């Protein structure tokens, strides 16, 4: 029997604007634009299909504005897609479109089934509440009530993310960029999610700190078996972390496949150009 994906996304669309009947036909990689000339709507994502299997890391690359973050935001319910379906294997036996459930259920899914790490720590953390407090917030959302257990779990997570235990009660605003990302990762892992979404989490960090975070991400996948979607415009990051990659351009997936194949033998003109410009 073929393995079922942990997350299955079909035909996801997200537009900013009122839209018209020609939006999809008049935008995309072929015309190198995501703005409909007829109605000025931005086609941030269109017709996105995606499968993520348990325990794997899948990469999403693409130039700035190609729709990567929008896709992630739709998957964690920060934004509502305009069309499309998604199924999570460990929710309603993978039979219910998670975009169509009540907002209460969506919140439950986000709190219990997902972890999110943003490029900007401001988005994922309260920088002026303690490191432990930030982790506790996520645990409480996931129905942890016992203060002692929350504290033990928070310490465990600091250890996992290689943060010094004595910083538990410190404020992330006093942390370095790399440490803030570790706190975000600790918080994202708190509820033991089967799927972690990471959007440009190493962008802007200096090279050695970036390497430590990448190493941490790999270890989390290997040791905890958590599946991840890693978004980056940096091919080196994608190459180090993933076995499979999706290439996005103008809101569309233009190519997908084995990461080494996409990079060394890209099939589409857009991917070839992208790779040449990103190497």
């Amino acid at each position, binding site marked *: 029997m*073929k*393995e079922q994906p942990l997350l299955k996304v079909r035909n996801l669309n997200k537009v900013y604007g009122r839209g018209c009947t020609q939006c999809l036909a008049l935008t995309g990689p072929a015309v190198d634009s995501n703005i409909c000339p007829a109605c000025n709507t931005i086609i941030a994502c269109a017709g996105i299909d995606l499968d993520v*299997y348990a325990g*794997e890391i899948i990469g999403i690359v693409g130039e700035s504005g190609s729709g990567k973050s929008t896709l992630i935001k739709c998957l964690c319910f920060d934004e509502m897609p305009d069309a499309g379906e998604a199924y999570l294997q460990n929710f309603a036996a993978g039979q219910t479109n998670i975009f169509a459930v009540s907002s209460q259920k969506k919140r439950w899914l986000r709190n219990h089934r997902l972890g999110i790490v943003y490029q900007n720590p401001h988005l994922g953390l309260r920088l002026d509440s303690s490191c432990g407090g930030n982790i506790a917030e996520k645990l409480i959302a996931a129905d942890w009530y016992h203060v002692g257990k929350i504290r033990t779990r928070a310490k465990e997570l600091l250890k996992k993310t290689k943060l010094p235990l004595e910083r538990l009660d410190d404020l992330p605003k006093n942390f370095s960029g790399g440490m803030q990302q570790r706190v975000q990762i600790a918080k994202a892992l708190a509820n033991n999610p089967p799927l972690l979404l990471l959007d440009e989490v190493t962008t802007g960090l200096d090279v*050695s700190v970036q*390497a*430590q975070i*990448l*190493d941490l991400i*790999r270890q989390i996948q*290997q*040791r905890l078996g958590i599946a991840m979607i890693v978004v980056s415009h940096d091919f080196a990051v994608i190459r*180090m972390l993933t*076995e*499979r990659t999706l290439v996005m351009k103008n809101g569309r997936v233009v190519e997908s*496949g*084995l990461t*080494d*194949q996409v990079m*060394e*033998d890209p*099939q*589409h*003109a857009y991917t*070839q*150009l992208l790779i*040449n410009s990103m190497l």
Partner: protein
Amino acid sequence: MRVILKVTDLCKTFTLHRLNQRKIIGCQNINFTVQQGQFIGITGKSGAGKTTVLKCIYRTYLPSSGSIVFNSALQGEIDLAQSDVQQIITVRRQEIGYIAQFLRVLPQMTALDLVVETLLAKGDHQEQAVQQARAMLRHFQIPAKLWDAYPHTFSGGEKLRLNLAQAMIKRPRLLLLDEPTAALDEQSKAPVQEMIIELKKSGTTMVGIFHDLAFMKDVVDSNYQISQGCFKEVGIA
């Protein structure tokens, strides 16, 4: 004897879209069969298409036509030229190893972790994986004081041995070697040769590219010369 790999009429053409759809022939009409435990050597001038053949088998390159039938212990006979991505990922994790000229490493991952990770990806448990990895590093004579160091500072020979340790620990059914000795001096080649002989004795099937024939004449069962993308079987000196 059991056929492990059968390549039939394999062609690979690269299309460079940005250069007016220019076509570049990587290899064409490649035919060969590898039986269990055999070592097939590929030789040829630079640019002749050797790496292309190997990368098509590993599916780093998408073959343009032809078939690459691999006898998988887990999935039965599968055509690597047609298999879906999930199948290829499984076969890579479990059964096919690729050793390139250069070691690709995470800058902050220790030598030990690098080898351990291969086993974890295969589905082994942490403790068992660490034990086996240590034994493998010892086997490939990587000094214990380097086990918790970062490989990007290793010497060429140490990197190569680590490379071999990482590829061998999963006991691949098929091992692809792309000029693994190209970056080594004469002295460092001998241990690699010994290892290959040992692997062969233990029944590993291999397809390898080497530019010096002397290096592989003791182990090679068939030698194919590739010239302008085409294969020709040549005698073993």
